[in-house]
C-alpha cells in the first residue's frame, strides 16, 4: 500500500530524512519511535505532501502510484489521512460544516444528509464527544485533547486506507487515550496505519505489528511490540552506533 524507497528529505536546505525505506501493507500497524528531531513528523508530513518539505531523492508510492503525481487534496481523496500533531485552527468554520464538506470531497458518492448525520452521531458517541462540538469553530479554543479527538473523528468519517497518526497520543489523559486507541483499532483492519509516538503507553491499547526506531533520519532497528518497551526502558543512545 505504501512503499518508501531510499527517501531523502530537506527542509529549507537542511537534510532531515537521509535514506529511509518502509513498506506498509493493508491491515498492518506500524509504529515509529525516536528522539525529537529524528525526522518522524517530517516523514508523515512529506507523505501527505506538505509544501515545506522537499524530496531530494528517493520515491514514495501509494497503491503503486508515485506520490509526486498527486496534489495534497488528491492524496486525501485517494485514501490517505494524516492526524496532525498540531492541527490548524480555522476560525469561523463550524466543525459540522467542515466535516460534511470533507466527507463529500473524499468519498466517491457523498452521503445523503440523514445517512451522514447517523454516521456522525455514531462516531461522536464512540469518541464520547458532545454534539456542541459541531457548532464550534474548527480547533478554535480547543484543548489539546479536544483537538486530538476531532482528528480521530475525522479519521473515522473519512475511512482512510492509509492513516498516519503524528503524536496523536501526546498530551492525552488515560481516558482520552483509551478512546483515541479505540478509534485507531476500528479502522486498522481495513487500513495501513503508521503511528508516530514517543510513548509506549498507547501500545497498551493498540497492538502494532512492527515498531521502528528512527535515529537521525533513518530507521535503524525494526522489531515487534517488545521493541517499544525496550526503547522506553533504555532510550535511544544504544542505537546511535547503528545510525
Amino acid at each position: 500500500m505504501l512503499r518508501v524507497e531510499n527517501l531523502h528529505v530537506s527542509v529549507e536546505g537542511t537534510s532531515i530524512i537521509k535514506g529511509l525505506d518502509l513498506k506498509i501493507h493493508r491491515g498492518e500497524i506500524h509504529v515509529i519511535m525516536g528522539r525529537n528531531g529524528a525526522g518522524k513528523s517530517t516523514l508523515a508530513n512529506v507523505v501527505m505532501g506538505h509544501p515545506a518539505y522537499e524530496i531530494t531523492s528517493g520515491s514514495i508510492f501509494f497503491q503503486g502510484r508515485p506520490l509526486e503525481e498527486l496534489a495534497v487534496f488528491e492524496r486525501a481523496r485517494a485514501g490517505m489521512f494524516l492526524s496532525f500533531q498540531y492541527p490548524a485552527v480555522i476560525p469561523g468554520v463550524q466543525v459540522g460544516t467542515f466535516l460534511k464538506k470533507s466527507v463529500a470531497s473524499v468519498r466517491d458518492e457523498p452521503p445523503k444528509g440523514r445517512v451522514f448525520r447517523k454516521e456522525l452521531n455514531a462516531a461522536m458517541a464512540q469518541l464520547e464527544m458532545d454534539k456542541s462540538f459541531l457548532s464550534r469553530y474548527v480547533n478554535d479554543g480547543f484543548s489539546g485533547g479536544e483537538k486530538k479527538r476531532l482528528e480521530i473523528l475525522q479519521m473515522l468519517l473519512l475511512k482512510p486506507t492509509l492513516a498516519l497518526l503524528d503524536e496523536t497520543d501526546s498530551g492525552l489523559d488515560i481516558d482520552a487515550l483509551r478512546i483515541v486507541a479505540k478509534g485507531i483499532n476500528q479502522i486498522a483492519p481495513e487500513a495501513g496505519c503508521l503511528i508516530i509516538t514517543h510513548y509506549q503507553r498507547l501500545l497498551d491499547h493498540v497492538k502494532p505489528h512492527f515498531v521502528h526506531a528512527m535515529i537521525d533520519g533513518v530507521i535503524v532497528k525494526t522489531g515487534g511490540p517488545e521493541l517499544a518497551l525496550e526503547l522506553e526502558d533504555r532510550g535511544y543512545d544504544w542505537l546511535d552506533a547503528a545510525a
Partner: protein
Amino acid sequence: MNYQQMAVPPRSAHLWRYTPWPRIHPTKPEELPQADSIDFTFDSFAAEPFQRNGQSADIARVFLEESGGSCHRLIIDGRGETVHIHARASGHIAVGHLDLIVKGEATILLHLSGEAGWCGIHITGQVKANSHLGFGFINELDPNTKMLRCEDWGVDRDASLESATLSVGGFNCKSDLRANLNGTGASIRQSVTAHGQGARHDDHHIEIHHLHGHTNSDLVTNAACSGSSHYVATGLLTIAEGANGSDAGQVFRNLLLSEKARAEAIPELEVLADDVSAAHGAASAPIDASQLHYLMSRGLSPEESESMIVNGFLIDAFSNLQNGELTEQMRTRLTVHLECELKR
C-alpha cells in the same frame, strides 16, 4: 455651521488620511447639491419625522444635514423584538437620516440597498439606561455606488450596544462611526466585516469614547481583500480622565487575497485615566499556508479550501457579539452574499 464656509479637511487628519473629503464628496467639494430622499420602510414600529439639530462641526455630518433627504425617528420600547428597516437609495444623490431611541431590549437590522450614484446616510442613536440594543448595518448597495455613512451613538448607564456591520456593497465607501459611553456600566461591542473585490475601496473610521468609569468596549474588524481592492480601518479609542476601571480592546485583521489588494489598519489609543485595561492589535496577511494545507489534506481542492478560510474569517468577526439574533442575521446575510459571489 454652514457647509460652504467650511474648509476642506487636510489629509494629515487621522480621519481623512486614506479617503480624503474630495474623494468621497458626490461632485466637487465646494458644491452642496440637493439630494433625493433615501426611501425607508419599517416592518414594525411606526417612525416619525424629526428635525436635525445642526450641532455637528464635522464636515461630513454638516454636508449630510444641509444636502436634505429624508429624516425619520424611531422610538422603540422593546421587549426583545427584531425590527427590519429597509433603506433604498435611488437616483443621482440620495441622503437619509435616521434617529433611533431605544429603551428595553431590541435588535434592529438596517438593510441598505439601491443603485444611487451617491448615497449618504446619517444614523444617530441613544440606548437609554439599562437598555440593550443589537444593531446590524448591512451595506448591499449597487457595486457602482459611492457611499458616505456617519453614525453617532450614545450609550447610557448600564446600557449595551452591540453593533455589527456587513460591508459588501458600494464601490467607494467611507464610514465614520462614533460612540460615547455616557454612564457607568455602559458597554459597546462592535464588529465589522468587509469584503473587498475588484477595485472596491472601503474605509471605516471607528471612534469609541469612554467618558465614565467601569465602561467596556470591544471592537473587531475583519476584512478580506481580493483584486485591487483597498480596505482601511482607523480606530480612535479614548478613555477620559477619571474613567477608571474601563476595559477596552480593539483588533483589526485583514486577509490579503491578491498581490494588488491593500489594507491599512491603524488603531489609536488615548488613555487619560489611571486604572484601565486597554489593548489593541492589527494584522494584515495572506491566507495562512498551514490552514490551507490542513483543509486540502481533508480532500478539499485549493479553491474550496481558500473559499472556506475566507468565509470563516469574515464570519469570525461576529464572534464577539452576544446577541444571538443579531449574530445569526448577520451570518445569514454574509452567507447569502458569499454564495451569490460563488455563482458569478
